[in-house]
């Protein structure tokens, strides 16, 4: 499974080494924060798994969907009417970035004194992650 994912990422043109760093950073933060809680509902496991799957299985699902001719649109902010996109058979994919790891890679195009969310997203694009 993980070899399949690495192949998927490679086919998407990701920088595998940097992507591994991003993933490791996400896992580390998740362990320090959410997983350090003492009395979590057991069913939070779905959401923990989904966090890791966001770059893995979910990515594979979307690639598969696109291969079958499915359309998608990247979105920023919660104003975009999901109902209309879905009714037109277009998958809305929120792109708001939350990872601090990728922020500095946005220096390629953006000044430092702007929204970290935007810098995070574009930093992922520019770092190939």
């Amino acid at each position, binding site marked *: 499974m993980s070899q399949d994912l690495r192949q998927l990422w490679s086919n998407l043109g990701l920088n595998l080494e940097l992507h591994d760093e991003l993933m490791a950073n996400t896992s580390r933060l998740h362990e320090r924060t*959410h997983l350090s809680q*003492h009395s979590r509902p057991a069913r939070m496991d779905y959401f923990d798994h989904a966090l890791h799957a966001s770059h893995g299985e979910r990515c594979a699902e979307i690639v598969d969907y696109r291969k079958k001719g499915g359309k998608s649109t990247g979105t920023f902010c919660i104003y975009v009417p999901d*109902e209309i996109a879905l*009714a*037109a058979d277009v998958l809305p994919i929120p792109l708001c970035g939350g*990872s601090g790891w990728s*922020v500095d890679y946005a220096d390629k195009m953006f000044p430092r004194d702007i929204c*970290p*969310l935007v810098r995070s997203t574009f930093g992922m694009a520019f770092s190939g992650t």
Partner: protein
Amino acid sequence: MEVPQKKNPLDKELWLKEIYTFKENVEALSGTKVTVERLKESIKLVNKKRRVMQQINEFRRLENPPISGLDTLLIAQISLNQDINKFIAGCEALIGELQERADKGISAYDNDGPRIMMAGTPSPMGNAKVHYVVESSGMQIVADESCTGLRYFRDLVDETPEDLDGMIAAIADRYFKIDCPCFSPNKERIDNILATVKEYSVQGVVQNILQYCHGFNIEAKAIENVLNEINMPSLKIVTDYSDEDIEQLRVRTESFAEVMAAEAPAAV
């Protein structure tokens, strides 16, 4: 999409036109027309997603809630990424467990509060810094009015219209209720905050603002003034995604927790 900056009739007209333009764009992209049947289904589905998020949130009204602020934040973050049907199923399973935990009085916390509402900018997937610092300082985040909180799922689309234009107007109305400070004036945000602090028995508010988000940062003063009028302690944090200021933030949040414990605030 061109989001207006006011909520006057002229702006509402612009917003409705933007929704129609968006509709045309996605139809052109997929080759699938938005029909009455398809739109009815998608409105129901997205409303269902909002409803399950609301249901999870309701458990946080309880004393010593069965789910933490950190975890409800994660749920909101995942809601933006996962397949909608899988996400709804994941939430429904969790709701069952939360009911059991609530019935048994199982708290997500190893402390008794104070009860905090987060107000401000969203924390997309990958960023839980401020929520983590607040909760690990011995406080319970029982409400969050940000875009990765109530602002995302508070309002439903009205399901009564049966015609296409009626449904589209209902959608435009729902999204126009969003109380982001990019709208000015933004009185509904103040009304929403005051209602939420009451409904969730909030004892203190942390304004969590992403650096360079001038809308939220400027509006923070108005929010602080309103909170002062009701003797609600508040703390404003402006930060970025980096780890560098975590310990400084912790000093502030721990002091905030101590101040609230010392003042033994009255319920709102």
